[in-house]
């Protein structure tokens, strides 16, 4: 927030004294807390830890790919590196990153509640996540697995080596952490809204987390049973997916992708909610087309369950099913287009502060549009036949997950940092970091599109020499991206110790979370807030027409 935005009434010591951070210093008060804000911080620390492990595996891969014959790792080592990278990043970083950190922290605050509907269940969800994380650490340091994060059978159930069953148990257990979190969010949003907080007055962050929770609850169980059957097949030789025993490997793919495609919407929907908040707060203007954007989240969540077959166009699936899935996959792109166009229209005639959160939001939109449209290309049957399982697909989903979800995560981290920690961070450094991340990301992943269309298959340790130049560029970009991601660790960490105290509303944003102190007290609000106006009721250019939400 630029210096002009800091208002005068710097918080007095009383606010700091009764903040939730001061409510108990013992380890026990943190590890047995039922305060949704503290659980959010526990999640923030644990997903940062797992991000390090996933990023470490990614660094190994990028270094190894500097040379066509891959000198750093053996074939087996490379396969285990990308499997660990995939499993850790998908289930232990991306899926919990925005919902379990910012969803947990902000949902009660934004709807004017004191806590989640089931506080103890919320803590249990974190312990289940840490338990499964522990099992996964044993797998990672025990040598990992070489199945990829997709666990395709019969490779995973018969031929793979490494602790496959332990990895499956880790992912299986982490699924229940997602289910409990989703359940908690849905009940909280329905039952604990402040008086006057109608559905039309909910911030779009809440709509997107509501849609994410629906996917959490309805998709994760199918993954659980599928992985259970793979583990049974590997342990007892009872083959449901093993063709030697008459099983059908395509059945595994159907059940796996029935979860895994909605899972990518679990990863992007919270980011879409965050960006809606960042754009409206930066532009000091109501979102353009509130109901279209709100229902777009729900539409993405529901239609997201009908499109999984586009992962199986070349798998031997029937042509007619492929044609149906291709059409449905085009339909699911429409709500995302609505959001992008509405964000752009929101900026029109706004009062825009170009701070770090907005830089993250704008780079999110750019990268998300590139990722989304290449996804649309992949939904085209004839194009997918050529580029399926190549670097083109790898680039597509990294544009959505890293370019989209992780950029939005950093945008949210910067935007709500004053509220979470009560400290202000260094704005210039944050803007530099945002630009470095944008540039580093594109240098890393754009070459992958080119290699993909040229026919470079994914998960190749040894690759044809003509791709070396683009691989080296990508690895260079990855180094720059690592610098970009490391910077916030320093200046945000620094702000914890030396940062100036943050006022209640440094951005001048609307939203109940900005009406309470920074950091908020243990029970969020000194008195129960009552809501009379819409979510983004910024003063219009001329105050005459103050329309309600």
């Amino acid at each position: 927030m630029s210096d002009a935005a800091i208002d005068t009434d710097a918080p007095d010591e009383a606010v700091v004294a009764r903040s939730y951070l001061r409510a108990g210093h013992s380890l026990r008060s943190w590890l047995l807390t039922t305060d949704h804000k503290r659980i959010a911080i526990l999640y923030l620390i644990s997903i940062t830890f797992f991000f390090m492990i996933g990023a470490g595996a990614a660094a190994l891969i990028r270094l190894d790919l500097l040379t066509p014959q891959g000198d750093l790792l053996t074939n087996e080592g490379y396969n285990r590196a990308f499997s660990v990278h995939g499993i850790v990043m998908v289930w232990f970083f991306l899926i919990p990153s925005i919902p379990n950190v910012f969803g947990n922290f902000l949902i009660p605050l934004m709807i004017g509640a004191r806590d989640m509907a089931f506080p103890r269940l919320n803590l249990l969800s974190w312990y289940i996540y840490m338990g499964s994380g522990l099992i996964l650490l044993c797998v990672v340091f025990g040598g990992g697995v070489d199945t990829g994060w997709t666990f395709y059978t019969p490779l995973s159930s018969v031929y793979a080596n490494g602790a496959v069953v332990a990895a499956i148990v880790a992912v299986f257990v982490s699924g229940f952490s997602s289910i409990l979190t989703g359940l908690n969010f849905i009940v909280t949003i329905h039952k604990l809204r402040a008086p006057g907080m109608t559905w039309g007055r909910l911030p779009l962050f809440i709509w997107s987390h509501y849609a994410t929770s629906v996917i959490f609850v309805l998709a994760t169980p199918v993954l659980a049973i599928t992985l259970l059957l793979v583990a049974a097949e590997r342990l007892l030789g009872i083959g449901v997916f093993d063709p030697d025993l008459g099983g059908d490997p395509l059945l595994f793919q159907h059940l796996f992708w029935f979860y895994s495609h909605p899972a990518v919407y679990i990863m992007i929907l919270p980011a879409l909610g965050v960006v809606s908040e960042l754009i409206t707060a930066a532009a000091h203007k109501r979102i353009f087309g509130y109901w279209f954007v709100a229902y777009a989240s729900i539409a993405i969540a529901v239609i997201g369950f009908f499109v999984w077959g586009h992962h199986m166009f070349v798998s031997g699936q029937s042509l007619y099913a492929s044609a149906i899935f291709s059409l449905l996959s085009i339909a699911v792109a429409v709500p995302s287009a609505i959001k992008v166009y509405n964000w752009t229209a929101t900026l029109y005639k706004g009062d825009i502060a170009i701070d770090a959160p907005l830089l993250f939001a704008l780079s999110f939109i750019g990268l998300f549009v590139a990722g989304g449209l290449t996804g649309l290309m992949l939904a085209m049957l004839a194009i997918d036949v050529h580029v399926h399982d190549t670097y083109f697909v790898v680039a597509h989903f990294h544009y959505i997950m890293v370019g989209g979800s992780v950029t939005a995560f950093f945008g949210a981290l910067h935007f709500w940092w004053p509220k979470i920690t009560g400290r202000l961070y260094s704005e210039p450094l944050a803007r530099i970091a945002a630009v470095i991340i944008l540039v580093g990301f594109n240098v890393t992943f754009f070459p992958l599109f080119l290699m993909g269309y040229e026919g470079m298959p994914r998960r190749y340790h040894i690759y044809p020499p003509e791709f070396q130049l683009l691989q080296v560029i990508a690895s260079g970009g990855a180094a720059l991206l690592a610098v970009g991601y490391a910077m916030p660790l320093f200046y945000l960490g620094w702000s914890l110790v030396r940062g100036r105290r943050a006022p209640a509303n440094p951005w001048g944003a609307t939203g109940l979370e900005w009406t309470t102190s920074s950091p908020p007290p243990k029970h969020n609000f000194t008195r129960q807030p009552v809501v009379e106006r819409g979510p983004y009721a910024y003063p219009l250019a001329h105050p005459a027409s103050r329309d309600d939400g």
Partner: protein
Amino acid sequence: MMAGAPLWPQQASQHARSVDLLIASFGAMVWLLTIPVFVLMAWFAIRYRRGRTVNREHSPQSNVWIEASWSLIPFVLTLFFYVWATKLFLDIQSPPPEAVPVNVIAKQWMWKFEHQSGAREINELHVPAGRPIRLVMTSQDVIHSLYVPALRIKQDVVPGRYTSLWFTADRPGRYPLRCAEFCGTDHSVMGGALIVMRPSDFSAWLAQHQDGGADATLAARGERLFRKVGCSGCHAARSAVHAPSLDDLYGKPVPLSDGTTRIADEQYLHDAIMLPNKEVAAGYRPIMPSYGNLLDASEVGALVAYMKDREGEDSE
């Protein structure tokens, strides 16, 4: 179009050129829809930045018509490309009847190609230019995927069943052939080359690469196996066992015991050998033993080729 440009893959078939045209025109349409977003975002961010005095009157809150239009128009435009892409997809999934079949067996970390003429190759496939080739593929262990970037085609090779892929390469040359589905340790080295030759060179190559063994063609090898593993014991005309006749069977409808009928394609013949009780012919009891662990994929391919070759003559 842009063939051989450093960042563009070679085009070795008409299908490759159509796919390139499809992605190029779709990419152009996509850019037309997104450039205004980037331009407007940057322009608005600069023009309406905080502290700048500019007319911010009457900023619209919502406009159903605009919002409906910018969601439906891109959808309808994309539908046009959907139809085009689906047509192309259906083209490459329906091989012409005169396509020359080649048996392909994928196993952990190599490709085996077996021509009808009996020639057998490892990791390399020689084909005549300009003639449709149909690959009948199966895997002996995990899922692999035969991928020829120059032809823009790919098809997973699934253990336990046949999947097929057809193409007409029209430019002689040596094109990379790769495995695209992660299949274990040496997935990245499991590749080779598709060598497209002028028909004259191809027939010369074929002559030199006769199997040289007792059975000149794949069908002949199938016939030898037919007797060796005991199929003729039941299925020969004079045998006492009540078993369905295999004369003139390929491509004909076969009435099954559960009342449905099934065209006797390669998949049916493969299943009849490996999983005999799955689709029992009408009027017969499921007494045939399974050859699941007796025959490997290559031998089953040879037997299938033999049954396709039996135009009714019943060799003793």
